[in-house]
């Protein structure tokens, strides 16, 4: 899945701070690698209600367009808690009939690969054509292989 900069910004404005090093290397899209202001978890009471709106955490939104498809990342938004994030996502991302199911995930819960690690992560796959299943004769009539 690719997370591009538009999607990451979402409706809540850019998440990168000033002077942040943006890189699009390694298929990550333009992701700020440092200085990303991840809001600390807002103080919550026993019901999970959070405090001031400045502390509203960021949530990533995944929408399934129809049955049979997987959930796709569509963007992110701010909300005081998960229940409100789900409702905000419904209003922001599905008001023109885009989805049948929504997942909400705290942005802070995502562990991303680092662009600094792109060589050990991805380079070894580049020159090994034999890993691609291109050396078979596909029988006729098999259209979805």
């Amino acid at each position, binding site marked *: 899945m690719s997370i591009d900069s538009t999607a990451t910004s979402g*409706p*809540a*404005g850019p998440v990168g701070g000033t002077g942040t090093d943006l890189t699009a290397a390694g298929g990550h899209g333009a992701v700020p690698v440092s200085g990303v202001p991840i809001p600390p978890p807002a103080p919550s*009471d026993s*019901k999970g*209600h959070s*405090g001031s*709106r400045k502390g*509203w955490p960021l949530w990533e939104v995944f929408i399934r367009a129809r049955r049979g498809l997987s959930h796709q990342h569509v963007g992110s*938004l*701010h*909300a*005081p*808690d998960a*229940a*409100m994030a789900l*409702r*905000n996502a*419904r*209003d*922001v991302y599905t*008001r023109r009939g885009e989805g049948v199911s929504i997942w909400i995930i705290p942005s802070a819960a995502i562990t991303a690969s680092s662009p600094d690690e792109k060589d050990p992560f991805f380079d070894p796959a580049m020159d090994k054509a034999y890993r691609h299943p291109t050396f078979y004769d596909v029988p006729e009539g098999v259209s979805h292989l």
Partner: protein
Amino acid sequence: MTTAARAGATPDVDRIALAAYVLGLGDDALILAQRLGEWITRAPQIEEDIALGNIALDLLGQARTLLGYAGELEGAITGQPLDEDDLAFLRDEREFRNVQLVEIENGDFAVTMARQLVFSSYQYELYSALSTSADPMLSALAAKAVKEVDYHRDHATQWVLRLGDGTPESHDRMQAGLDRVWPYVEEIFDATDTVAALPGIAVDPALLRSAWSDHVEQVLAEATLTVPTPKWRSRGGRAGYHSENLGHLLPEMQNLHRSHPGATW
């Protein structure tokens, strides 16, 4: 309009009552849509901006159907059909039939959420009941709109719970919002001659009261808020008597249409 004729002895009287009834419901939706639209670019967060805009657009959609239908019914009586724009933009204050609750100013976010809780809980019960109305237009609209309003009620409920049971500041402001809105509650459930003239078609609002109270009081209790006991109550919106607020709302809503009659884009 054959169903209208079924309700009583003289078809004309029933059609007049039906036109008035539909107009009242349409005006409720129209005026509240206008009020909620005022939040756009002013809501506490952009996500909330979009949520309130969505709710306003749902209500505007209901208003268009209802006002279009009311104009048709009136046209059948007077011989001069009116369209939704005629009714929305070319009537004056005394001709509007909305309850006063929907015209009061937005106030802070808590006042708006208090008004939303009161009104969407009422509208939810109303449309649930109207979905079995003998009037096919009303029952079709209600069956569709009740799903929209279910969400409006949930939205308001979520916010009242969070503000009421949040910080001391949010609790006090939510309670103040309820206190501001509660004088306008009784009027919603007032009996009218119009409803009495339309058995099987219109819904007696008094019958919605207990289901409304069940939901609202449960939300307020869970939100650690108290049901206000206002010292006065509004009345007369359905008869065209309005608060000063509507007089300020209408020029803004109607200005464009009145300045450029028939303008399209």
